[in-house]
């Protein structure tokens, strides 16, 4: 190997080291800014298209009453919900309270009938808090509701009475 080649190799080492350092810095930057972050929390279930992440310990975060359990089916209700225009998810606590003995199919829709989300069967204690929407909404104030279709937990999911929880949806 000639002296000149050796000299060239010696010169190349620090340059390569510098390039590697800058590359490492770039990767570090991407990691810190969350570019590689996978959204495993809200991974959709493939049961019914867009379904969101269903939790098994959904908690409506309302103080429990003490006393004899009441017969019937508990239906959650809301005062309002908020989101930004163009967003594809909504923070809304939809679920089937664990005190129930029936199943529920929940549908989020606007008063004009536009369906924004349909859940798979929610068993008692199951629910979700970040709702993946089937479409985005423009700025405005909307009348919205969650339709809870109650069903027996049998093979046919025999329907029972249903409930609708109306609320105002603010899109800012």
């Amino acid at each position, binding site marked *: 190997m000639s002296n000149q080649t050796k000299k060239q190799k010696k010169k190349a080492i620090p340059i390569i080291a510098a390039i590697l350092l800058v590359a490492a810095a770039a990767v*570090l930057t991407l990691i810190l800014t969350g570019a590689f972050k996978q959204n495993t929390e809200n991974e959709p279930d493939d049961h019914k298209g867009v379904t969101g992440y269903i939790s098994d310990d959904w908690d409506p975060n309302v103080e429990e009453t003490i006393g004899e359990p009441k017969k019937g089916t508990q239906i959650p209700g809301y005062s309002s919900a908020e989101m930004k225009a163009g967003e594809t998810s909504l923070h809304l606590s939809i679920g089937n309270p664990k005190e129930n003995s029936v199943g529920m199919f929940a549908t989020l829709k606007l008063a004009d009938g536009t369906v924004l989300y349909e859940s798979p069967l929610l068993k008692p204690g199951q629910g979700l808090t970040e709702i993946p929407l089937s479409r985005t909404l423009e700025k405005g104030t909307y009348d919205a509701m969650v339709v809870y279709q109650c069903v027996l937990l049998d093979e046919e999911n025999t329907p029972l009475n249903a409930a609708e929880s109306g609320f105002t949806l603010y899109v800012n």
Partner: protein
Amino acid sequence: MKAKRLISLAIAALLLVMTAVSVSAATLTDQEPGGDTEVKAHISGGNPPGEVSYIITIPDVVDFGELTQPTENVDDYKDVTYTVTATKIEGLDPATQQVSVYVRDQNATANSNQDFKITNKSDPSVSFMYEVYRSESINPVDLISGNGYVGTVGWFLYGFTVQGESLTGTLHLNQAQLYGRDITDLVGEYSGYMVFYSAVQNL
């Protein structure tokens, strides 16, 4: 020497990039003056938006049990009670707000005023009407269809302001509807579903 200088430069570049990351979230420039300076506010219930602010307990199913065909053409009522409870209410100002509950038949459409019905599961053309009262006794003033039907949500049932408040009402079916009909056309299982609509409303 050259190599040392290059490594120093690279380390300096690395430190510069890391500093930029930690600061970038708080940077404001003249070129992008925030975009939206509109100040808006709205007042909602006491609970944060998107959280459960109340829970209403509704009956799972309404079961009239076995109906019997009267032998004479006279009123022959079968009554069953139902209960709706405000199981939990949070962040509501009872002086100005209530959880309003409305009810309608599952097959009612907008402004249809449709009666409540149970329908033969194997022959949907056979159905019987029933009335819904907001009390255990059958008083005409408590017949819910005595009040106006609201848009698509149904008949106003009750306004709850306090956690634990309950309403026990009655479903009232006149078996005289079965009188004089061929019983073989009527036998079978019947079902009908009620839809309960609830919302926080200002008083």
